[in-house]
């Protein structure tokens, strides 16, 4: 098990190096001058040239790449030219926000998906299963940001239970402010999760081991939790892992809509302002997040299905 984990950890290194290199090359090849963007349209060419020199942007691309890698090896993510602040301190503020959003949305996804999938698998021809199908069709058809806008409108303005966007100073207020964006992200994942879980559960219900358990006289409840859900959980974990990995793009839009100061909105600001160091750092962190989530998924998979460890 340890060797299996160590091998996967080693495989992550070239993935991260690839992410770092691709983000560096893409940012530097994209048209746009960070110094001009930082100084504004009215700054003189001499001021722009002075700043380009100060930031080392007048050096060749390979030289810039080498000094960037050297800086990374020393644990220095650089300084944001837009925020005029060290990126590590910006990350310290932004990363916990995005992680909270990701974790909360994953929890909400499970809390919504499992009962819905379970109900429609146990009563496939009932009214509830039809309602779940309808719910899935509507939620999957509507873009995530539209769902977000609707949630703001009804739960933020009409009923006014949650704030209509923003991120208050108090910890309790912040937790409360994360519910709507997390729910929005979760609702984007729920239809896929419900479909996957329902299919896996339906297959489990029709399997020989469930028939055997029933023939032994076991009640439905332990059969559902100990046999069906455990086996269906394998596909659930895979889907959740992929969806959490895709959150980088989801957070980018949702954080903008809900005015949540996380990594997504910071990445967006960085891209628009050609803040090379900031974009590269955000890409690196998102890359690391994806790798960690996939590792966690593999671990959970191995825990749920011993055959995965053998392979």
């Amino acid at each position: 098990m340890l060797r299996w984990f160590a091998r996967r950890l080693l495989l992550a290194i070239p993935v991260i190096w690839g992410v770092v290199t691709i983000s560096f090359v893409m940012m530097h090849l994209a048209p746009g001058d960070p110094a001009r963007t930082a100084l504004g349209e009215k700054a003189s060419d001499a001021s722009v040239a002075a700043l380009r020199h100060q930031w080392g942007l007048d050096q060749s691309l390979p030289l810039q790449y080498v000094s960037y890698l050297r800086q990374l090896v020393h644990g220095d993510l650089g300084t944001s030219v837009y925020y005029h602040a060290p990126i590590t301190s910006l990350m310290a503020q932004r990363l916990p926000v995005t992680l909270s959003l990701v974790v909360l949305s994953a929890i909400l996804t499970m809390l919504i998906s499992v009962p819905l999938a379970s109900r429609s698998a146990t009563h496939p021809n009932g009214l509830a299963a039809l309602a779940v199908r309808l719910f899935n069709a509507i939620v999957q058809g509507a873009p995530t940001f539209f769902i977000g806008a609707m949630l703001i409108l009804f739960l933020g303005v009409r009923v006014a239970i949650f704030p209509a966007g923003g991120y208050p100073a108090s910890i309790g207020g912040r937790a409360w402010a994360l519910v709507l964006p997390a729910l929005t992200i979760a609702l984007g994942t729920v239809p896929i999760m419900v479909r996957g879980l329902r299919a896996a559960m339906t297959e489990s219900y029709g399997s020989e081991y469930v028939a055997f358990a029933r023939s032994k006289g076991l009640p439905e409840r332990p059969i559902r939790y100990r046999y069906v859900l455990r086996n269906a959980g394998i596909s659930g974990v895979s889907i959740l892992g992929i969806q959490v990995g895709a959150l980088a793009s989801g957070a980018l839009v949702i954080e903008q809509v809900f005015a949540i100061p996380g990594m997504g909105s910071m990445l967006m600001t960085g891209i628009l302002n050609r803040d090379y160091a900031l974009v590269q750092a955000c890409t690196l962190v998102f890359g690391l997040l994806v790798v960690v989530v996939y590792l966690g998924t593999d671990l959970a998979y191995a825990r749920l299905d011993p055959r995965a460890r053998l392979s």
Partner: protein
Amino acid sequence: MKRFKTLCGALALASTVALTLTACGGSGTGSGVPQSGGDLVMARADEATSLLPSVPTDNASIWVIEEIYDTLTVPDQSGKSVQPSLATSWSQSSDKLSWTFKLRKNAKFTNGQAVTSADVKFSIEQNQKSDAPFSFIDTVITKIDTPDPATVVFHTKKPWSPLPADMALYANSIVPKDYAGKSASQFAAHPIGSGPFKFASWSKGSSLKIVKNTGYWRKGTPHLDSVTFTTVPDSNTRATQLASNQIQINEYPSNSSIKSLKAQPNLTVSMFPSSEIDYLSMNVRRAPFDDVDVRKAVSQAIDKKAILKAVYYDHGTLAGGFLSPTTWAHDASIKPVPHDVAAAKATLAKSSHPHGFSTTITISSGSQDASSEAQLVQGDLAKIGIKVKIKTLDPSAISTAKHAGNYDMAFGLYTTDIVDPDEIARFAGTYDGGSNTLYSGYKNSKMDTLAATASSSPDQSARKAAYDQMQQIIADNVPYIPLFYVPGIYSYGKVSGFHPAATGNYFLEKVQLTK
């Protein structure tokens, strides 16, 4: 980026539905009795980037800096002249080569230190450094003398009439000498000024709070206890936050939402005169825009009134002269070029491309307004035989392309940072003023002479005559088309006394919450 643009478009649609629905609800009162104290929350699209006066160029920073620091002079409400602030009086020497400012004696920084001429000298010198974006404003100053703590003398390279207005620029805000013993970055993290509010806290990406400066030299103000600026990038979210009383002021609601906002009895939508001018630039360095008849034909063919209605919902007026009506140098006799397809065809027939040509218009990605505007221009120009292809670049790339002269036609906007017309006359009117005549590449030595004459002359009527000539030359040669004079738009709830100046200053010391 394309995906993001599509998302934004769809979100705008979703939120229009949302706003229409919210228009039926809401609570609170739009008018009421002003009260003292309270925390005003203003939601803005962008976050401040730095509170060190010599560093930022973005309005989100500038308009907070103006609340924390004082400048020697301050723009008046109309944006046409300046008033005393830290300086109580100023005068130009008889040889016109220096300006003497007398300082207010009861002004103190929020750390208790008195404001002196040494602080003024240090502050202006920070903005003269080559990497300061607004250093070009102060390059005319050759030397700063401080004969006593209450007197500052600025020596200039040449007679320089705009200096009192230059001193109202945010980048010339007065900070304590040597940043009160701190490094620039330490000071930027905990800034100290002598303005009506003092810095309290800043949660990057989320909110910035300033609190009342109880020792402010202008007695009786500010009325508010504090102001919190929150960052809410999406205009629809800002609108819903206002509808749910989560915020009191929404900065720059989208044009499409204004009708819905106006329909809500509890909210006020106000349009303040601003110096913003939106334009369409043509690259005269490239054929066929090197031909003035081509440029004139384009101007005649564009139905500006239709664009104003469709894209700006009629919030603004058609532009004539390139200097805004908010400046005293505006020439009202220059009228917008009327939309006339027949005249445009006739003008094009006289040009080097009588039967039309193909060209591109470069627009900023993510801007639905720019996209709509470009499509309308495309339709208008097709009627006279000009085929326009729309090219999309993100904001940073478009700025680089314009500075490099690597485009055919492009939209843009400009605002002035000082109340004197000098800055914008040079920026938008001359080749060496920073933008190569608004990126058009149009060169005319007469424009340089007129700008120099205007800035050196102490006589305002002589200056006005020079600026009038500059506006006429641009109107005659059309290197770019001034399209619209655009107001500053705010929607707000229980607030009184909120009247931003044409330069954008909020003047929050005059603002009160209402009951």
